[in-house]
């Protein structure tokens, strides 16, 4: 029996990008063999921002939970790394993963309290919580209080005895983190859960009416992104080897920039953070020396993009050129080219049942 319709997910472009992506991954795995220290350092930064942006996009773009307080979990992850390695003797690379679990634990009471706030008030509520964490860690004197502390050298040595090997291991850890984050988001979005998330993104009442438990879904997504954000925070702390409350819980570094990346790239699309990260790092490489001018420009850029191109770069590419990198959309393909969605779909289905 031949079906008149089939559901297709991958497109030719997404297959091309899939092959290119695997090729890029191979290049990235081998990067320590042909790149210098500073390039590897930059790559880890790129991984961190891409991961933070993808997670924020999952949270805000799909579930509508616009958080301005994700720096809470970046900071918690960083401090967990310090606590686990210094006081519990956990190997640093393992601590990066465990920091995610710690951040998840903290996110449960956090979510329980701030889920009472809706919409824009939720946004500022998350910010207050992040401030509470920052001010609290500034009072913890064993972790250096307000001025922060550095990882003792014997712990740094325990990663690998020499600097080159250490840099490589941190780089590969970063690569594992970003691949894990992107793969998780991809698999979630392709699953039933992803369908629920997309439904919530498009219309909350409609999602609820077809049986999605909005509150539960949002809660779980919040915990998941908090945990992954914690691991990224631990990675950031491991790369810097230093931590202080103001840097670890910085709203500018870990939320403002991340939101700009997602908005410029395209919110509510998995490709968005990818494009946004590229634009962000290009701008940074060329304009960072301008200091405040650079940030003013970034602020203006965000306003202009929101008003004129609300779907960002990824949205524009998808609308105009039908380009999508990740095969997340389901499309109906007809055997008979005259059939279309709508009445045609029903008749095509009927014919396929008869044959």
């Amino acid at each position, binding site marked *: 029996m031949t079906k008149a319709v089939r559901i297709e997910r991958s497109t030719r472009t997404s297959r091309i990008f899939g092959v290119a992506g695997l090729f890029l991954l191979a290049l990235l795995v081998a990067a320590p063999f042909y790149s210098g220290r500073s390039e590897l350092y930059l790559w880890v930064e790129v991984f961190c921002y891409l991961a933070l942006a993808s997670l924020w996009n999952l949270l805000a773009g799909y579930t509508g939970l616009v958080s301005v307080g994700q720096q809470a979990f970046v900071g918690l992850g960083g401090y967990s790394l310090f606590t686990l390695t210094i006081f519990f003797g956990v190997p640093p690379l393992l601590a990066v993963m465990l920091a995610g679990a710690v951040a998840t634990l903290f996110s449960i009471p956090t979510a329980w*309290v701030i889920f009472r706030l809706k919409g*824009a008030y939720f946004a500022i509520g998350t910010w207050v919580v992040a401030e509470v964490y920052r001010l609290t860690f500034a009072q913890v004197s064993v972790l250096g209080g307000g001025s922060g502390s550095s990882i003792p050298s014997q712990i740094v040595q325990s990663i690998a005895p020499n600097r080159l090997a250490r840099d490589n291991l941190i780089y590969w850890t970063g690569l594992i983190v970003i691949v894990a984050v992107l793969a998780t988001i991809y698999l979630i979005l392709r699953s039933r859960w992803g369908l629920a998330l997309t439904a919530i993104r498009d219309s909350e009442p409609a999602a609820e009416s077809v049986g999605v438990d909005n509150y539960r879904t949002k809660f779980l997504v919040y915990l998941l992104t908090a945990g992954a954000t914690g691991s990224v925070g631990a990675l950031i702390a491991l790369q810097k080897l230093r931590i202080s409350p103001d840097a670890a819980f910085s709203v500018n570094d870990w939320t403002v920039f991340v939101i700009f990346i997602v908005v410029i790239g395209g919110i509510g699309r998995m490709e968005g953070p990818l494009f946004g990260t590229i634009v962000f790092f290009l701008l940074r490489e060329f304009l960072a020396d301008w200091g405040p001018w650079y940030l003013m420009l970034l602020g203006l850029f965000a306003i202009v993009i929101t008003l004129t191109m609300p779907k960002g770069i990824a949205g524009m590419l998808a609308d105009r050129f039908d380009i999508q990198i990740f095969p997340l959309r389901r499309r109906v393909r007809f055997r008979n080219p005259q059939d279309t969605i709508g009445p045609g779909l029903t008749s095509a289905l009927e014919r396929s049942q008869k044959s």
Partner: protein
Amino acid sequence: MDLVSTVLDGILLGGLYALFAAGLSLIFGVMRLVNIAHGDLIVLSAFVAMIIVGALGLHPLVTLVLVVPLMASLGYGLQRVVFNRALGHDILPPLLVSFGLSVFLQNALLQIFSGDSRRLHAGNLETWHFDLPGGIAVGVLPCVMFAVAVAVITGLQLLLYRTKLGRAFRSVSDDQETAQLMGINNAHLFGLAMALSLSIVSVAGVFLGIRANFDPSIGPTRLIFAFEAIIIGGLGDLWGTLVGGVILGVAQTLGARINPGYQILAGHIVFLAILTLRPQGFFPKTR
């Protein structure tokens, strides 16, 4: 007696927080816009007042004659040119636009005025005080701030419930489409609401500058204080916002008495506790 004086300081500080909050609450009520740049606009007003003090040698409070119309015009323009385009059923665009504006303002101020701490010098007003029985000294400035906050809230209440403009604000708040059908020009009205909000912001900014040091980076924290006062008091009730400001102020001064590092933390914790126990605030009014 020391404790009484700490609590009194906190209550009076609550007046300033209510001033921070009133403008934010007004525009949320009228157009459901949460202006993330609110705190930065307060700081901007303080800088504008500083320039006028420097240029004309006026007393900071007298500069309000110029700061209020300047900020009100800026508010009207911002609303018509920027915010109105972002408003809609989706909450994300206005949030992102005001977020962008916040970052822009902070860095523009940093570029123009550097990161140094500034102060608006108000002469004797800074030090004047009177003594209550029991040896409690009360500053005149905090009392003036509190009185101004009460006056601003009274004025807003009268405007909202006794005037034609107030009726228009309330009708738009209830139902934008129907209000428009009744002949209200929403875009213009939103502009007026933002102008009014920034007029209150000007007053708050000048008091902020007289009371303590300020620099371009302190805006976001003022936004958070304003937000906490609104939520504690209950969304939509202006007198509730004053009570919220007072609770926040007292929490902060008591926290600071235990340890100066706890001042802001104590305020946040009281806010979160109230959010947990009584999420609708003390005087909820929004539908």
